């Protein structure tokens, strides 16, 4: 945001304090009411847009996974003693012998009631499998999200404020390097160094999984935290750069602004100018990014979940794709897309509260 925003904000502040509009037809509303109405109209449009997107996702997911050149029945029974009659029976049971349009209509009809069918390979309702794996993903990626967002914001602010300094150059270079590192490779490296141990570094953390399977109560909580350390570090290491870079560039844009010079001229401490004046304005693009990332929390991290054998949605999606277990991948795809759409919608809805220019 630049100083251009100031008049709009001032106008709004004036309108808020000066009371109703002085003249106009009897039906005329106050600016506040007009703003509220505009905001509600804006929110309704966003929600409608989200609903349309969700329906498009529902339709897309059906056809998308049918493009995968694979035969689920043959894949599932691969290597086992199965007769042609059994294969036919399985195809019939899964509805794969039905015409495409019939499969499509029953899929959409069921999905609208929240029923994504039964997983071919797990013989359980898709939603049950998703609900089963969701907490593990939320725990891992949620924790990582909080940490990498916080770290990215903090370092982004610091590096921008000390633009050109050694620490700026070092932090930016390090973040870019880690951002470019494949997450599975970094994960494996961490396993070798900190789980197995190398040289004087002992193996301190488990090589994978969510728990040891022997603990209860508080010991269980600590056990899970112990298992989380390496995957969380991996996710944070490859994830914080994005927030750092957006925050840094956004704050750099602000730094030449007149209002900051004014603030300094008033005798405010540099730290105060940064925290109270520059950062809140620079937060807006970062805020958008954080909401986009929030949507991805649900989708998990397929590669990191695989390397650390984390029993979450990412791993489940990978297993679903390998068959392909059509109901499972369709259900997961829909849930992932829903999370992103909802997070974006939420960002859209909240954005005007932070930046009043939006939504008018």
């Amino acid at each position: 945001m630049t100083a251009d925003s100031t008049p709009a904000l001032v106008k709004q502040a004036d309108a808020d304090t000066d009371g109703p509009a002085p003249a106009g037809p009897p039906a005329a509303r106050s600016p506040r009411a007009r703003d509220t109405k505009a905001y509600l109209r804006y929110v309704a449009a966003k929600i409608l847009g989200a609903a349309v997107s969700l329906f498009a996702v529902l339709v897309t997911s059906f056809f998308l996974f049918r493009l995968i050149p694979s035969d689920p029945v043959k894949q599932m029974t691969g290597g086992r003693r199965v007769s042609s009659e059994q294969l036919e029976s399985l195809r019939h049971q899964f509805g794969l012998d039905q015409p495409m349009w019939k499969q499509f209509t029953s899929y959409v009809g069921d999905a609208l009631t929240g029923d994504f069918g039964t997983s071919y390979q797990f013989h359980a309702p898709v939603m049950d499998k998703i609900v089963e794996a969701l907490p593990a993903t939320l725990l891992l990626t949620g924790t990582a999200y909080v940490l990498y967002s916080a770290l990215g914001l903090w370092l982004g602010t610091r590096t921008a404020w000390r633009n050109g300094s050694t620490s700026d150059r070092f932090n930016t270079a390090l973040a870019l390097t880690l951002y470019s590192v494949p997450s599975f490779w970094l994960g494996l490296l961490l396993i070798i160094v900190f789980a197995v141990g190398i040289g004087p570094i002992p193996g301190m953390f488990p090589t994978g999984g969510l728990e040891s399977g022997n603990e209860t109560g508080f010991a269980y909580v600590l056990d899970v935290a112990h298992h989380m350390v390496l995957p969380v570090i991996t996710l944070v290491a490859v994830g914080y750069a994005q927030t750092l870079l957006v925050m840094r560039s956004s704050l750099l844009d602000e730094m030449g602004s007149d209002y900051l010079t004014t603030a300094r001229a008033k005798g405010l401490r540099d730290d105060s100018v940064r925290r109270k004046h520059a950062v809140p304005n620079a937060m807006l693009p970062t805020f958008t990014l954080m909401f986009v990332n929030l949507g991805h929390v649900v989708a998990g991290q397929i590669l990191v979940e695989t390397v650390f054998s984390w029993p979450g949605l990412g791993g489940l999606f990978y297993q679903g794709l390998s068959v392909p277990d059509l109901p499972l991948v369709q259900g997961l795809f829909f849930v992932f897309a829903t999370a992103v759409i909802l997070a974006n919608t939420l960002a859209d809805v909240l954005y005007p509260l932070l930046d009043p220019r939006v939504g008018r």
Partner: protein
Amino acid sequence: MVERVPPHAAQPRSRLRILLASGAAALGLAAASVVPGVPLGAASPQQAQAADSGKSTLTVAVAQSVDSLSPFLAQKLLSTSVSRLMYDFLTNYDVKDNHAIPGLATKWEPSADKLTWTYTIRSDSKWSDGQQATAEDAAWTFNKIMTDEAAAQSNGSFVTNFKKVTAPSPTKLVIELKEPQATMAALDVPIVPKHVWEKVGDFSKFNNDTKFPIVGNGPFILTDYKVDQYVKLKANKDFWRGSPKFDEVVFKTYKDQDAAVAALRKGEVSFVAGSPALTPAQAASLKGEKNVKVNEGPGRRFFALATNPGAQTKDGKKFGNGNKALLDQKVRQALFLSIDRDTLIDKVFQGHAVNGAGYIPPRFPAYKWEPSASQKLGYGPAKAAKLLDQAGYKLKGDQRVGKDGKPLDLRILCHATDPNDKAIGKYLKEWWGKLGIGLKVDCLDDVSVPWYAGEYDLAFDGWSVNPDPDFVLGIHTCAALPVKAKASAATDNFICDKTYDELYKKQLAEYDPAKRADIVKQMQSWLYDSGYMNVIAYPNAVEAYRTDQIKSISTMPEAAGNIYGQDGYWSWWSAVPAGSGDGTDNDSGSGSTGIVIGIVVVVVVLAGGGFLLMRRRRTTADDRE
């Protein structure tokens, strides 16, 4: 310019502080997990448990997920292996040479007309809830599979030739057949307790994973299961063959093979197998490791090249687009003559495979077949060139050109997930290229669709073979062809030949093992001569275990075989725990170093947090001033 003091300036700051606080808390929690009182990663689960309860635990790293714990639904190797441990089968395979030996049945014999088999059920097998396991349980299990389509998903093929199954007495099971069947001692069907399973409503949805421990009568009782994390089984002390030596076996999920190898190196798991074998690099890295033994045994798989003999349906309708040149036996033989198998075994398999010929791997000696000297297609590129000339594909420039003037260009289907396919594809391209044949290597994640559509010329092929060869032989019969074009079918690559089919029927009806083995060898000879299939190698099973956790374990075949995925429960049933003490010194050493590092991390985090807080407070004070 009006100074804009953001109306909610305090809010982002406090939000940021919350975020920082959460981060610090999470880091603190993570660091706290390495302080005393919390098990360090360096200690293996077995050792940790030993300290708690004195239980000996064998932890097996597995890559697969359990698809279902119901033996009626389970398809994956892990799930069927777990069923083997939970439930007894009528018969088992001898650990030395795979011949059928008693299981739940102590003996079995056919009637004079070969259509009725009578099994004597042992009276010393009890379900884990105390009830006696009887012939009625076995009869109920088979009848359920025969009558309920949902219950036939996993083992339906075993009962297709069954007419009737009865239990005239608790120790007598009678199976009546429609046609004679030599595989009656190879019914790999877990027998379940009727009194538990008759309460199940819908067999298509019951996964047998809600109530623990699960009632069974195998060498282990399943006590706990967490999706994609672990399957725990405790030793069945009352198992009729004798209790396993380990108190507990845990199958722990490692989705990444390298992570599983790291877990073995650390001692977190006792055993790791590949899928199907550890890579040469993994095996080499583990070979010098202290307390780790790399076990290499003859594999049960074959690695072959298959040609498309012309895709067709059961009623003879042709489909697909296989290259017609491959319908000429001389062309097929020329291709196989120009493959240098020794180079492939040396360079691609890096010595972890043996030269192939017969369709059944030599691990099953009763059915092992080798071509005669005159029959053998050894490495002979010159002979291959002659055969191609004879077949009408003359060399024109650097290309083989057919009578129609078109160059001989072929496609080969390769599994993108199998590095061996890709590497061998490169060699084939070079060797066949020297003959003037063009080759396109089509690597796909899943080759089943073009394969079943008959849209390929050649394909990398491979199967795991059971002790009874009926299944892998059956996939080349005319009966295995699809009903409709491009549909799923039991066929492997559309072979349909009268001579082969007659041999197949003869072996299935032959109850004399030696005579049956002879027919099976004739079938392999036919497959070899036809040139539709060419077995290149038998990859070895390469796996590793920790000798400081497992003192001894049975391989199958016992002399020098594999451990994971055996036909039977021998490996886990026979495994003997290593004595305590060996190897634990290292762990405790690294453990104490870990504690020191943990404490340092906690101190740094706390000091950092304190410093930040003090700085923040001072700043606020300055602002006030």
